[in-house]
């Protein structure tokens, strides 16, 4: 609860900050302070101290898992602000508003990480989506940005329609919006519920950009200003997956057998399309968009498996994926040219950037000693523990092998090809230090994932 209310308040605060101090650099620091506050508040709640005592009527429930995920999301946001805060302000005149919107998104994030009623899910998802439509289009003069925004908006609201239809059918079948109240599986599944589940899965898959509902992702990620792409592709995506898992675990867990095949199909499709399509990309930004689809495929495994291993894995995956991708985008923003060749000679001109991005890429590729390895490892174990649809694991592994191809193309450009001029704009030493710290976290989680996971058992 702390997080929800505080983030909403902080959103408002940022609005006024915008009015007060236009778009000065200091805006960034207010935002950073805000996130810190958020982290503290959330941590306190995690530790059992809740500022507000509101009767939520069972529409929300704050589990350690959800709160821990909020932690991950907020920390990622902090790093994101620290690394790319100034770039956020360079997108347009009203930087403060962008921060405000992002705080609203965080509010939505902390709602979907704790919802218990489909109504809250709906509202949470909308609170996440609407600001993103704006952020996608925030580079107003840029046609690509416009296009991204409109595409995102149209398809987003279409999927909202599907989701509402699903909710309605579920309601028709069960007579309630509460996940707890549905007591599915107790009775034989009715077509109403069945269709409802399908529609819910489809709309969630859409939000999580899982194939074949992923088509918006590359265009939107490619078109939006890179800073916001970074935000959308990491924190938001992870949040959607938490909601996804929560919905299907608490809501339809008992009916797993009836939808597992569908989940498996979506997972496999996502893995294959994401990885294979990424192979041929020419722009790193777009490649990262596809790679985010590919990663989504792996996260889907948690939904498919629906077991503790999967939950832990999803948490770890969110952390690993967010850290690596945010770092990578932070570097990408500094590049003059977003194509692969744009990275040529980075190692010579900016060794720190090259080193850290290498670590991030290795993590995304799931190489041992990086957090990426263990997140993939947990997912695979989770999938194998279910003891069925082993082919899915094989698909996953093959795709992981393919993913190496496009991740390492970047490494090749950075280290083994050379360019006369420095490929980046000037970067400060603080930025580098921060990148190093982030990379350090990635490696730390890669050596001892327990640091994060053991908190779950608290």
């Amino acid at each position, binding site marked *: 609860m702390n997080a929800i209310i505080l983030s909403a308040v902080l959103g408002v605060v940022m609005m006024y900050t915008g009015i007060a101090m236009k778009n000065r650099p200091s805006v960034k620091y207010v935002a950073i302070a805000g996130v810190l506050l958020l982290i503290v508040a959330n941590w306190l709640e995690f530790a059992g101290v809740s500022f507000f005592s509101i009767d939520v009527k069972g529409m929300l429930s704050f589990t350690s898992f959800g709160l821990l995920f909020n932690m991950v999301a907020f920390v990622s946001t902090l790093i994101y602000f620290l690394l790319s805060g100034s770039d956020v302000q360079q997108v347009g005149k009203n930087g403060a*508003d962008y921060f405000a919107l992002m705080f609203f998104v965080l509010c939505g994030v902390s709602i979907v990480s704790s919802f218990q009623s489909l109504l809250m899910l709906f*509202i949470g998802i909308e609170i996440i989506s609407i600001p993103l439509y704006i952020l996608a289009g925030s580079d107003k003069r840029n046609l690509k940005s416009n296009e991204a925004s409109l595409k995102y908006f149209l398809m987003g609201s279409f999927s909202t329609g599907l989701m509402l239809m699903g909710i309605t059918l579920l309601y028709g079948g069960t007579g309630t919006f509460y996940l707890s109240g549905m007591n599915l599986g107790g009775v034989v599944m009715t077509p109403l519920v069945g269709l409802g589940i399908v529609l819910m899965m489809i709309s969630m898959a859409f939000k999580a950009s899982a194939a074949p509902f992923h088509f918006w992702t590359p265009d939107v990620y490619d078109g939006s200003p890179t800073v916001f792409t970074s935000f959308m592709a990491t924190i938001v995506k992870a949040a959607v997956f938490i909601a996804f898992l929560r919905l299907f675990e608490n809501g339809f867990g008992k009916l797993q057998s009836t939808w597992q095949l569908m989940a498996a199909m979506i997972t496999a499709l996502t893995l294959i399309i994401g990885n294979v399509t990424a192979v041929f990309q020419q722009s790193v930004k777009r490649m990262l968009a596809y790679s985010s689809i590919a990663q989504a495929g792996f996260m889907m495994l948690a939904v498919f498996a629906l077991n503790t291993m999967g939950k832990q894995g999803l948490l770890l995956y969110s952390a690993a994926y967010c850290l690596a991708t945010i770092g990578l985008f932070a570097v990408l923003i500094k590049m003059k040219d977003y194509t692969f060749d744009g990275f040529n000679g980075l190692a010579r001109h900016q060794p720190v950037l090259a080193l850290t991005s290498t670590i991030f890429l290795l993590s995304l590729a799931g190489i041992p000693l990086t957090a990426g390895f263990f997140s993939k490892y947990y997912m695979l174990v989770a999938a194998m523990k279910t003891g069925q649809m082993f082919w899915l694991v094989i698909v996953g592994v093959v795709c992981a092998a393919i993913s190496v191809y496009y991740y390492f193309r970047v490494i090749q450009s950075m280290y083994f090809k050379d360019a006369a001029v420095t490929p980046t704009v000037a970067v400060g030493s603080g930025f580098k230090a921060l990148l190093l710290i982030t990379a350090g976290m990635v490696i730390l989680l890669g050596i001892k994932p327990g640091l994060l996971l053991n908190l779950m058992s608290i």
Partner: protein
Amino acid sequence: MSITEVLFWFLTALALLSALMVVFSRNPVHSVLWLIAVFFAISGHYIILNAQFLAIVNLIVYAGAIMVLFLFVIMLMNLNAETEPQKNRWLWWAGTIAGGSLMLVIIAALKDTETKTQMALVKGGDIGLIQNLGMVLFKDYVLPFEISSVLFLSAMVGAVVIGKKD
């Protein structure tokens, strides 16, 4: 056939017809007007179902506010029929068939299920009255009510950010 049923069929027919007109009329302005008609029909259904509050809100919010907004925008851009040249037939048919099959599949799935015998109570039941709804809303649903304010805030900020000249 009671008056209710007559009304029901009439409104249903109206809703479907004007919905189709929304999709197929060439001129955007006409589409808007047909959509308003759909809303009226639906409101009518609400009244039959004795959900008076929603019926009114539907008219006020949708037909009143939203559609007017649409109308403004369309007028603003003075889009008339010519602005949309005929798109390629193939996609048109594909879309129609896809949508149609969607409907068929859902109906086929739902036509004879546990709901077959169920009735939706018409003309009776006062949960749709504003007083009851208000009670429930501010007793049980206060939290989402509050939170939806965040939604509005963000929408507002968004509209401002997008709309502001710079």
